[in-house]
């Protein structure tokens, strides 16, 4: 089964308030080595054999991510 793992995160120019809260929580627990936290979501797609990377890219642009505020990465695996 061909799988695609889509990772969606806010663009660096958009304030990631959730990430800031989690970073502060880690600091308050003593994990001062954490400089920044970037939150996001992960979507796994089970794909028909032969699905092209271009098609997955189109899925991301059209629906899975909002290009106004988000960026995405796709990793394929068998």
């Amino acid at each position: 089964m061909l799988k695609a793992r889509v990772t969606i995160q806010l663009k660096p120019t958009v304030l990631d308030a959730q990430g800031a809260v989690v970073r502060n929580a880690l600091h308050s627990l003593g994990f001062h080595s954490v400089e920044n936290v970037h939150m996001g979501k992960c979507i796994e797609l089970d794909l028909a054999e032969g699905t092209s990377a271009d098609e997955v890219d189109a899925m991301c642009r059209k629906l899975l991510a909002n290009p106004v505020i988000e960026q995405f990465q796709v990793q394929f695996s068998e």
Partner: protein
Amino acid sequence: MMTRPNAGRQHDGVPGGRAGRTAAAGAEFPSPDPAGFLPLSSCRWGVVVFPGTNCEYETRYVLGTVLGQPVRFVWHRETDLSDLDAVVVPGGFAHGDYLRAGAIARFSPVMEALSAFAAAGKPVLGICNGFQVLVEAGLLPGAMLRNQSQRFLCRWVNLRVESTCSPFLAACRPGQVLRMPMAHGEGCYYADPETLAAMESRGQIVFRYAERDGRVTPDANPNGSVGSIAGVSNAAGNVLGLMPHPERASEALLGSDDGRALLAGLLAVPDAGGTPAFPGSGAGNEAGA
């Protein structure tokens, strides 16, 4: 519904109630009562209903019963809006708000018809989730982020009218402050600086969160929206979206009737029937008052 002096007249009846959601595209409008108490021209309204919409009844109530306008529900699978003069996309959680608020709803069949409706210059108003849907659909600029506090916030807010470029704001004055409730978790408005500058120059930023006296302060911004923006319009002005709920502030009994100024705005446009008057013309408070 509350008893009103004219409560005997029901203008909002959709035959079969929720059946109006089914195949009843082009459902007949009840005629507004000619002896109605409101000196308004008639505007045939549609209220879009997605699975998960939850503000359609109060929106229909305000348009139909309070404002005396013909109004019907538009189920999200309908594709013919030719019998309508104006459309409201009301609040709720369309398609569960899965993925992002409005992300799935924008691909509902009605949205193609709504895009054509908007492109033809006809008025479209998005309230709360409806605003999110219009933004996702690209009918309005920008995008919505989760509230900076990461919490769902339900509270009264004050909106300062920034621009009256939209026909919905024909009954409002720049600087006027409208008080109405908001209730959302994903209402932190975002647009990049270039988009914001273009919007500003065209008068597309129509509402900002403000103090009661009209000052725009960080404390008055409940969700972290860029520029304290609470509502925007498209460049032409006929599509307008805002996060707070004017339909929940359309009768004094509810704590404010300022929302009526917005919902009745279209009816104050001279082209739409003469007198720029709307019910409760004292709605809103001057900044500084």
